[in-house]
């Protein structure tokens, strides 16, 4: 070996250099092996859904599928809209005004996935329990949502999410 000063040697340098090169190599190989678990191209290609809301009559709810998850489309009655608007914001665990949750006030579009642990809340069918606020009720752990899909009582931390959507014509929405 050449000069060996106190502490560090050329060999120490080689050790650090090869360990670094090895770690970089492993990281480069690890990435494809991790990324393969992310959604594949054909899965991503299915990430938007179009839906014609004109067939949803007042007072009626329809469940459609977007990215493998249920989306609730509810044509609300005047009474339900008024109830949603009448609530004081400080009564809400996750305050949000109703008009921020809709594009057209009568057509409520929600991701039908409870924000607690991912069950599908009841309330789409006329015979379902709708919870104490007349919206949706999650039977798994007892979360109550109001007519705007906002959490009112139970373990869920936030309101039912509103998926990204827009009207691409008067009656057709494109989700995603």
């Amino acid at each position, binding site marked *: 070996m050449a000069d060996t000063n106190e502490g560090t040697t050329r060999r120490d340098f080689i050790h650090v250099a090869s360990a670094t090169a090895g770690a970089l190599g492993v990281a480069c190989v690890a990435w494809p*092996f991790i990324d*393969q678990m992310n959604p594949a*191209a054909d899965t991503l290609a299915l990430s938007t859904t179009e839906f014609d809301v004109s067939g949803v009559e007042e007072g009626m709810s329809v469940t459609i599928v977007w990215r493998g998850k249920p989306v609730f489309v509810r044509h609300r009655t005047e009474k339900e809209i008024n109830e949603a608007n009448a609530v004081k914001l400080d009564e809400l665990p996750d305050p949000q005004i109703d008009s921020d949750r809709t594009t057209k006030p009568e057509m409520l579009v929600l991701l039908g996935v409870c924000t607690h642990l991912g069950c599908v809340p009841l309330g789409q069918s006329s015979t379902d329990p709708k919870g104490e606020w007349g919206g949706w009720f999650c039977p798994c752990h007892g979360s109550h949502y109001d007519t705007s899909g906002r959490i009112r009582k139970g373990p869920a931390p936030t309101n039912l999410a509103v998926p990204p959507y827009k009207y691409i014509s008067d009656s057709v929405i494109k989700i995603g």
Partner: protein
Amino acid sequence: MSEPKFNNALVRWIDHRLPVFTFMHHEMHEYPTPKNLNYWWNFGSLAGIVLVIMIMSGIVLAMHYTAHVDHAFQSVERIMRDVNYGWLVRYIHANGASFFFIVVYIHIFRGLYYGSYKAPRELLWMLGVVILVLMMATAFMGYVLPWGQMSFWGATVITNLFSAIPLVGESIVTLLWGGFSVDNPTLNRFYALHYLLPFVIVGVVVLHIVALHRFGSNNPLGIDVRGNQDTISFHPYYTVKDAFGLGVFLVLLSAVVFFLPNSMGHPDNYIPANPMVTPAHIVPEWYFLPFYAILRAIPDKLFGVLAMFAAIGVLFILPWLDRSPVRSATFRPIYKVMFWVFLFDCVVLTWLGAKPAEGIYVLLSRLFTAYYFFHFLILLPVLSIFETPRALPRSIGKPILEGGGGAMAAAPAAPREKL
């Protein structure tokens, strides 16, 4: 064997209760290894690493593959086109299989040249042959999974080998298929076994290593280690040498994976399986070709199949066919030549296996098949009696210490203590 001293208190705490660190220190660090191993000794640990690569890439593929005749081909195409880096993982797995056999065949021929199968390493050798057989079964079933034309007809031909068994042959084939032809039940069970067998291989590899560490590696001189002056510790001397070999191997594997990914495959396997049409020229994967040539060389169904299995079976009894007490071909003037003749024979059989079974190829297949068995069954036992070996060195250290040791003279006389 000194008790290792660990600096880390947590390591000491665990090791006192569960001596895994002591075990690893003994078997992977201070493990005394002959100091004269050449690069042919890289291929054992390399094979182990390739096994890990195959299992890791295989588990990834299993996450995306569908074992059903209606979806298998599509799911493989989806892996190639849609799954993130799916093409990379599949090409690693498909070419990794070929490289696995290249590495293992080199490992086997190294054992043949240096007599690594001789006492006291007979069981070590036989466990290695078990690994080879398991690898072949795993590779064959893996090749069926993409459900292309070669998959389907390879599966049909290979399973039909068992129909050669007298009386119960047809029943056995029906049992293997789970039906009256290669179909969905066959694909499902092949998938289940293709996932299982690699872990069986891991188990046999563990036994292989236990048997290896009982007496340690053989070495190019084929003589026993006489003491500490003949060995160096596994780490860092052989870990670094194995790591270098691994680097070279990965460069070659990457070159094929990225630039020639289909060079060792058959285009016909990109055609979905069609039970109504057999491809014009059925050829197994290259690593089966010598055995395929032996199968076709015998003009009788039962004896052809028997000869093919015997070609592998004869390896099991090799330690008792070659009775020469001298291990390394370096000191066996005749065997040294015959080793290369035998290697040539195997290469020609590989070439013949890829040729159509007609004309001159049939005759050549028969000649080279006959020589394959002549080598093991007649030549080796006879050589054990009549060959006069050259004088063996007194110890591994001797030819190095007394100068003129050729390339080995460059090795240090005693391991340097630095680290």
